[in-house]
């Protein structure tokens, strides 16, 4: 059987069990509303455009935050790979920061920027920047010495060598770094929105919870999960796979 077919049967079974359980009143709707109720909440949300505004707002913050974090990660990664001193000092700090969930910066960010979008974007930036930094650093350090030697015998030196050989050779690591940065940034964004202000998917999630609208809570959770896996599997994993293949790291 095709994996896709297996998956469809699996999800259909879960939804069927969930719907039947709800109809037989095995649990209260306020604990777990039925799939049809969740579906209705989603349809209403899209019809009155609130969910569309939420999606747009969340994606705007994500784009800005992730964009900044990739640029910072690229810069810091190159610095750490090229400067031993920077690696031995700043490098250890970044390694430590990487193990801190970026949402813990939110209270500080709110003090610095106020209870607004900037604070959320700040948390998103911190979510993605360090993992990108570490991947770029490893990518540059792992460039095959053979490529560098070959390029040198063809007259490449200095900036030319970096731009035409070292940088492109480390692209597979950068793609992996960007994929992980996206995953961390997406989680940071949802946490940030949940704890601060809207519009945004996370904010609507809390708002719905405050008003006891469990159907919408579950609906938004599903949207968050679906977006997460679509971006990861349909975009990043495909790009990563084709890059690895082209770079001869996987056949």
């Amino acid at each position, binding site marked *: 059987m095709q994996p896709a077919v297996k998956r469809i049967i699996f999800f259909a079974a879960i939804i069927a069990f969930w719907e039947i359980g709800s109809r037989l009143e095995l649990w209260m709707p306020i604990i777990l509303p039925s799939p049809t109720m969740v579906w209705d909440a989603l349809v209403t949300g899209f019809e009155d455009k609130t969910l569309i505004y939420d999606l747009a707002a969340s994606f705007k913050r994500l784009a800005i935050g992730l964009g900044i974090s990739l640029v910072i990660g690229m810069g810091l990664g190159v610095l750490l790979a090229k400067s031993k001193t920077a690696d031995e000092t700043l490098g250890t700090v970044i390694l430590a920061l990487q193990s801190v969930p970026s949402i813990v910066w939110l209270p500080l960010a709110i003090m610095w920027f106020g209870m607004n979008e900037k604070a959320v974007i700040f948390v998103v930036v911190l979510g993605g920047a360090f993992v990108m930094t570490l991947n770029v650093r490893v990518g540059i350090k792992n460039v095959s010495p*053979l*490529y560098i*030697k*070959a*390029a*040198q*015998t*063809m*007259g*490449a030196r200095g900036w*030319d060598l970096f731009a*035409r*050989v070292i940088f*492109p*050779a480390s*692209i597979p690591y950068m793609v992996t770094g960007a994929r992980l940065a996206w995953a961390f940034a997406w989680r940071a964004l949802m946490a940030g929105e949940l704890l601060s202000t809207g519009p945004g998917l996370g904010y609507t999630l809390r708002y719905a919870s405050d008003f006891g609208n469990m159907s919408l809570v579950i609906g938004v959770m599903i949207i968050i999960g679906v977006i997460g896996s679509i971006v990861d599997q349909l975009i990043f994993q495909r790009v990563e796979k084709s890059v690895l*293949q*082209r*770079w*001869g790291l996987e*056949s």
Partner: protein
Amino acid sequence: MFITINQVQKQYSDKNNQPVDILKDINLTVQKGEFVSILGPSGCGKSTLLSIVAGLTKATSGEILVNNIKITKPGKDRGMVFQQAALFPWLNVMENVTFPLKKEMSKKQAEEQAKKHLQMVQLGNYTGHYPHELSGGMQQRVAIARALAMNPDTLLMDEPFGALDEQTRARLHGQLENIWTETKKTILFVTHSISESIKLSDRIVVMGTKPGTIIQDIKVDLPRPREKYKKEMLEIEDHIMGYLKREIDKVVSEELSNAASS
């Protein structure tokens, strides 16, 4: 003399930071257009010597002149082909071969130049392919075209066919011989295969090991192509084998005594 290697020594530090002689008293001259093989057991310092000529490694002492200029760094006058093709996987065949030409000529000129050399290695129809789509032998031919395209006087080759199967290797020997006849490059060709060196070269420089020194310099005076001279080639092979056997015995007995003392 076109290439002069003068009293070159190379030391590396071992685990205990003691200097170890890798190359000792290397003196060698090569004429313009000559095809010279450097033959020796693995670990004797062939790659190190070639890398010093390429300017990628610094000699501990001594000097190397190519075309009367002292070698201090790599340069486009010396093209290098490694055992691994070392093509850039993010560039297609055409972009790989034009890599060294970008700075000095227009894109169109560079592509013409590249095309000419790709045709020389019979890969004129593969310009749009990426390295991972090519076989090992094809990749190595692209690497040869890439080195030739920058029009170096000297071609340095470090076991370029060592990773290929027997049939592919034999075919590439023929192609390399043709290219050499056509372009009149000076070639320094490192190998550990006696028959390969006899098949291809005007002269064979035999190296001994620990430390790496030149123990013999043998002229191969057979007309080309050499397929017809099986008997003569075998005689030379026996002759060289005599020298190399002593070297290999030396390595083995040293390893045995190391094993006994440790």
